[in-house]
């Protein structure tokens, strides 16, 4: 059931969204919108509250206060609908290493309710797109890291979710594969999938349409990379990040 009153050009809409653990305010009244098909970079220092915020947006953690609509669904009432309409890729590799590539695709596709016919077409598409025809029947554990990451991403968008959440998807990946990974992101965003991505690589922040930078639970800046650099009179995103996060009180991970 979709809530018709919401602006459906927005994939994510939050208003003063907060999460407290006892006395500690992990996320402090964050308000922002993410447009459909946008590549949105969600940056912040370790311990700034990114993971907690992301867990609320995915319907995995109930906010303490504030409002949020994800793909048109309310984060308090419709968490199951949210989960069905998003994809998620964690920084830790989470496909089944002892299943083959095809088995993983069938397993995750099945969970998201794809029909047998859809599974068949989707598997073929994905394997061709990644160019892993030779590896389709091999155990995932035997694939090089870069391929695993690309496969994880493709599996996370297998059910054509409205939004895909990527938590440091390129950590430790070689520079060539990192760029191939971003091509997959661009392609998905071209198809209208909204990308919500965290990264510690500041060059990748430049590839986002807009980025937000979280410091001590609050969103301290949100704009296009070009506007942020101009505003902070900085030559690179690295410099913008440094200026904002340098004053952080919390450094906890």
């Amino acid at each position, binding site marked *: 059931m979709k809530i018709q009153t919401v602006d459906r050009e927005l994939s994510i809409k939050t208003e003063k969204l907060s999460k407290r653990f006892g006395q500690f305010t992990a996320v402090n009244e964050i308000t922002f919108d993410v447009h459909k098909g946008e590549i949105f970079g969600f940056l912040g220092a370790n*311990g700034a509250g990114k993971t907690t915020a992301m867990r609320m947006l995915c319907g995995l953690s109930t906010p303490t206060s504030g409002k949020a609509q994800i793909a048109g669904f309310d984060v308090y009432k419709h968490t199951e609908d949210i989960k069905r309409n998003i994809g998620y890729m964690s920084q830790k590799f989470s496909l089944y290493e002892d299943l083959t590539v095809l088995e993983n695709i069938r397993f995750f596709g099945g969970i998201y309710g794809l029909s047998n016919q859809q599974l068949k077409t989707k598997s073929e598409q994905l394997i061709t797109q990644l160019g892993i025809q030779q590896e389709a029947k091999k155990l995932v554990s035997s694939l*090089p*890291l*870069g391929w695993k990451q690309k496969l994880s991403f493709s599996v996370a968008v297998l059910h054509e979710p409205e939004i895909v959440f990527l938590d440091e998807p390129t*950590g430790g*990946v070689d520079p060539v594969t990192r760029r191939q990974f971003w091509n997959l992101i661009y392609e998905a965003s071209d198809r209208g999938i909204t990308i919500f991505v965290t990264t510690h690589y500041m060059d990748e922040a430049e590839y986002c349409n807009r980025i937000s930078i979280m410091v001590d639970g609050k969103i301290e800046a949100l704009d296009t990379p070009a506007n942020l650099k101009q505003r902070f009179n900085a030559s690179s*995103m690295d410099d913008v990040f440094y200026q904002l996060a340098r004053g952080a009180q919390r*450094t*906890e991970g």
Partner: protein
Amino acid sequence: MDAVIVDSITKTYGKEKTHAVNGVSFSVKKGELFGLIGPDGAGKTSIFRVLTTLLLPDSGRASVDGFDIVKDFRKIRDRVGYMPGKFSLYQDLTVEENLSFFATVFGTTIKENYNLIKDIYIQIEPFKDRRAGKLSGGMKQKLALCCALIHKPSVLFLDEPTTGVDPVSRKEFWEMLRRLREQEITIIVSTPYMDEATRCDRIALIQNGNFLSADTPESIIHSYPDMLYAVKAENIYTLIQSLKNFENALSCHAFGEYVHLSVKPALLKGTTTPAEDHKNTEDIKNYLSMAGFKDIVVKKTEPTIEDCFIKLLS
């Protein structure tokens, strides 16, 4: 005598004999800050484990501080410090207990070498009664570094100390390493972040168990053979697709705000003239405006270590 000498070390794993380290040789001078730069699975951790005598190589020889890694393994263990990639202190001991445990094991006291860790330890001292398991990521990293240093090692091995750490904390960590270097401790550090390479005296670029190159960051950058241009236009994705078809284009990769386009040098490497650069810049601009791009910026640029790594992979 070099602090670390590695001669054709090979390490394979499993039935398939997959090469984790494939005949690697290098040496590290006393007091040098040496970086192993490469992605996950390149073989960095295996090299660390061989040099800290935790793993036997299949073949090859190596010595640390003049001692053989096989014959004199006990002597090596006494004199090196090792900070593994995975946090491996005692989670249920406090900060202070962990530090005093490692000092005792190595037959020393916190007091004796306090000057070595002082800069780092004062940052976690307010939490000295907290259990290590309850510390934040950044504080765990600082405690692990203190524990690896407390016996005044002659060689310090740091395996991916900055992985998953935000850019501000990474910068601080490298500043700590620079200060340690002044104490004449030899440091071997690994990282998947190419931008950290320039903070080392010398580096090895490593992929699939092989060294692609080993030298000072400046020399590696200097030996980049092609001409490199930074190009900017409205849409990075279509810009890359289009630049790949530019005549003389060798490769084209996104580098933050700009796209780096490498072009075949007309003459020998390193001999491009300003006129030649001007011509190339104009050619690229014309090509892009013909293709319908707007707001085009093209300028010659110096390669980064990441450009070199990509070149060496191709």
